[in-house]
Structures are given as C-alpha cells and as structure tokens.
C-alpha cells in the first residue's frame, strides 16, 4: 500500500494544475469562513442588530461549540473541489492512456484502482484536517465561549461528505473517461441537478429526495441557524439513518468503480 501511495505521489508531485487548485481550495476554505465571520462580527457588534440576531440565531455561530457545525457547513459549499481533483487525476490517466501503461508495466488492475481510492482518501483527510483547523481558529477568534469539543462530530460528518463527493467523482471519471465531459457532468450534478431533483422528490414523493447520493450526506450537516424554521420544511431524519445511507452509497461507489475498471477493456 505504501508503494501505491508513493507512485501516486510521483504522479502529482510535479503537476502544477493540481497544486494550484489545491492551494486555491485551501485558501477558499479560510476565505469563505472569514467572510461569514466578518458578517457575524458586524451583526453582533451593533446593539440593534445583535438583539434581532440573538432572537433568531442565538449565540454567535462561530462560538464554541457551534463553530464545528458552522465551519463544516459553510466549507461544504466548496465540496466539489476535492472531487474535481480526483476527477482530474483519473481523467488524466485516461487521456494520456497511462491507465493502460500502468497495467502493462506490471500493476494489477485492482492495484491501479486501489491507488486512486487511496489518493481520494488522502485528499479527503487533508480537506477535513484543514476544516478542523479553520473551525478551531475561528472558534478562538470569536472568543465568546471557551474551547469545547462538543459537537465536533460535524467534522467527522464533513469527512464522510467529502469522501462521498470524491467517490462520486471517481465513479463519473471511470464511467465517462473524457475530462471535459466528466467535469461538466460532475459539476452540474453536484451543484444544481441533484438539488433540483431532491427538491422535486421532497415535494411530491414523500421527501425521498433527501436520500439521494450527495443530498444524504449534505443533510448530515444542516444549516446551523434557523433550526425551527427548517423543521417546518423538512422532516427530521435521524443521523444514524443518514450515516447508514452514506455507507451504502460509499460501498456502492467502491464496488461499481472496482468492477468497472477490473473487467472492462481499457
């Protein structure tokens, strides 16, 4: 396994596109939270707005322990980027035909695809780590409450959500192969299409839209404010059920990707 990671590392180490996108992504996580944090500050600084905000939102979202949910939720809007990195990685192999060459040179097909899953896992881990650091940072910057690890399960949910988005990206990459096509489909599906389908299903089909592949992990980290209002629109779904569904989809991604790559012509 160490060997697979080492070779995957050799592939991206000198790949500038990958690093530029990664750095921009990490900066964006801090940037997005910084913007939200500044808005929070400007609302809670003035007495008038503070009273209204206290009434509707409660404590400052970036104070411990709600910072964990706030940061995870806000950062999840950038969720398509780790998936994009995975997509670029797999589609590059297809366009350079190096997926064939790696097999010809002596990797088994399962080694090749395992290396991609490891790559995806590492990207997810690093993303989660950065979100954890951002939550910690803004929690301390808020300063209204003292440090607390309560509710930091949201960081774990972020990890699962990120794993799910990148695995979906890998599946799309393996199925569509051509990078422009795959990136377009992934981007549209993750940002617009699934949300639309989920909205329609939730409205007309007994709320089953919340069980769609990406939507189910989105629902793990609900909006950290207006909770009572959300409850009027969506039925309460237990976290255990959502985790179960997430696990189901993750296993499905893994099985389909592996089977597809191991049995088809390359």
């Amino acid at each position, binding site marked *: 396994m160490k060997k697979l990671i080492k070779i995957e590392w*050799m592939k991206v180490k000198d790949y500038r596109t990958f690093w530029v996108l990664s750095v921009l992504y990490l900066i964006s996580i801090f940037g997005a939270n910084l913007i939200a944090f500044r808005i929070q500050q400007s609302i809670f600084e003035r007495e008038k707005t503070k009273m209204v905000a206290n009434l509707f939102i409660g404590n400052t979202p970036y104070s411990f322990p709600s910072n964990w949910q706030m940061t995870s939720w806000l950062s999840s809007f950038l969720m398509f980027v780790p998936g994009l990195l995975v997509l670029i990685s797999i589609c590059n192999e297809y366009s350079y035909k190096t997926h064939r060459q790696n097999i*010809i*040179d*002596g990797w088994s097909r399962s080694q090749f695809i395992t290396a991609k899953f490891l790559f995806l896992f590492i990207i997810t881990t690093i993303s989660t780590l950065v979100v954890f650091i951002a939550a910690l940072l803004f929690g301390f910057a808020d300063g209204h409450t003292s440090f607390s690890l309560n509710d930091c399960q949201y960081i774990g949910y972020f990890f699962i959500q990120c794993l799910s988005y990148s695995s979906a990206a890998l599946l799309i990459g393996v199925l569509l192969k051509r990078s422009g096509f795959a990136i377009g489909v992934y981007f549209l599906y993750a940002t617009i299409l699934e949300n639309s389908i989920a909205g329609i299903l939730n409205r007309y089909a007994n709320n089953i839209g919340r069980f769609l592949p990406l939507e189910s992990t989105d629902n793990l980290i609900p909006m950290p404010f207006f909770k009572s209002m959300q409850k009027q629109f969506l039925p309460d779904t237990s976290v255990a059920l959502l985790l179960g569904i997430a696990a189901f989809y993750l296993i499905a991604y893994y099985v389909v990707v592996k089977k597809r790559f191991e049995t088809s012509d390359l």
Partner: protein
Amino acid sequence: MQTVLSVKNISKKYGFIQALNNVSFDVPKGSVFGILGPNGSGKTTLLGIVLNVLQPSSGSFELLGKEPDADARKQIGTLLETPNFYHYLSAEKNLQIVAAIKGKGFNNIDNVLKKVNLLERKDSKFSTFSLGMKQRLAIAAALIVDPDVLILDEPTNGLDPVGIAEIRALIQTLSVEGKTIIMASHLLDEVEKVCNYVAILKKGILLTAGKVDEVLVNEEIVEVGCADLSKLMNVLSAYHPKQKDNLLQLYFKTGTAKLDDINKHCFDSGITLNHLHLKKKSLEAKFLEITNN
C-alpha cells in the same frame, strides 16, 4: 523447446466485429517473433489481451510458462501501440514511475536513456518531445528492467531512417544476448530483416505461423504454354499446375526449377511448348498471396 508465450484459441469481438478469431500459436524462447499483418488485422488487439488491457471474448494464454499475472508483466519490457507517458513530467520522472511500478530502483534510468540517445533531454517534459523521441522514450521504458522478454508493437513507428536502423540494430543485439522479442509490424521488410519466426494475421484470422524461412520461402514460378492446354495439364499433373489466363504455372522452391527437364518431359509426351519462362517471386508477392486468399 521452452515457450515464452502460448496463445490458445483467443477470440475477441467488438460488437459485431470479430477482431480476433480463434488464434493460437507459441512463441519459442530466444526467438525474434514477428506478428505480421496489414493495418486492422488484430495485432495490437492480440498484444493488448496478452498484456491484460483488453479482455478476450474467449480463449486463454500462458505467459512465461504460467497463468498470466501482474508479476509476469513486471518482468517484460513493453511498447504497445503509442508511447503512453505523463505529459507534464520529464523523461526521467516518467521512467521513474515505470521503474517504481516494476519494483525496480532508479539506477538503470540514465543507462537506458543513453541507449536511445535521450540522455541530454532527460529533464525535458514529455510534452515537448517529437514523435520519434516519444517512441524512443517508450523503447527506453521497455528496456528499464533489462527484461528477458520484450513485446514491441510497431517499434519503428514514427522514427526517421536513422532511428529505424538503430532500433533494428538494437533488436538484433538484444536477440544475440538471448532475449525473446515479440514484435508486431505491418512491414514485411522489417519482419524479414529482424525476425526468425513469424505469425501472419489477417482480419483476426491466423493465416500461418512458423519459421520465417519456411513461411516466407522464396519461390520460383515456371510459366508454360502450348496450343492444347488441357493436354498439357494432364502431362504436367505431377507438378500441380495452376492455370492463369492461357498459361500454366508451376511452383518450385528457389533453385529447384529446371527448365530443360520440363521442356524435355513435354516434348517426350508429344507436346511442343510455345512458351517457357522462369519467374522469381518476391516476398511482397508472397505476402500479398497469403493475405489475399
């Protein structure tokens, strides 16, 4: 005789197209084995199956005397169809990935780059290479583990005449060192120059396989003609004549056709020939004959 590769009844279908039809042959150890066929005859498909990038519809094969696995491929040097490398990486870093996949160290990289005249370009990105340089890098990659078996698909593709001569010389050197080389080519001339075994494919069907000097044997053709062809046919039946226009053709291995004997035999049988001509058959004609039937 040990076999390096044994292909058994391999067929491959792409939808309605039968790319390979029940192909079987053995590649003996130490041979330079040419797989010869026109474009689209299934050469690359066959090698793709042997290298596990394509799945056969039916049939099986043995590589290095056992069921094929990834470890067998690690010991083989391969160039399939086009040179496949990471465009954004340098020649050296691309070869490092190949070596790492094959479980080898990096100490042979400079050596193989030197062999294909790319050492001074080792830090250049693959995307900056010309077609011929890409091809030479692919050959360097095939040599990186100092393999006992090489599979080369159209190895001289895209090379200039000097490059072609260099690669052919390299193949001959490797062959002298006792390595087995399996080479696909659509160039008869190339196969004839470097190979000692050949398998000829056409539209996915194996037409013939064997030693080059037996399969691509040079022939002599004697054309004879007279007023009464049917009578001549009877008289010469021992030679298995074939009629072509208003002449009969008799086939002989090189150096065995004796015109005076034929003439005498006909005259003794009461036939006066009005045409008697010896033709040498070229390899191209032989190849066309094999692939046209």
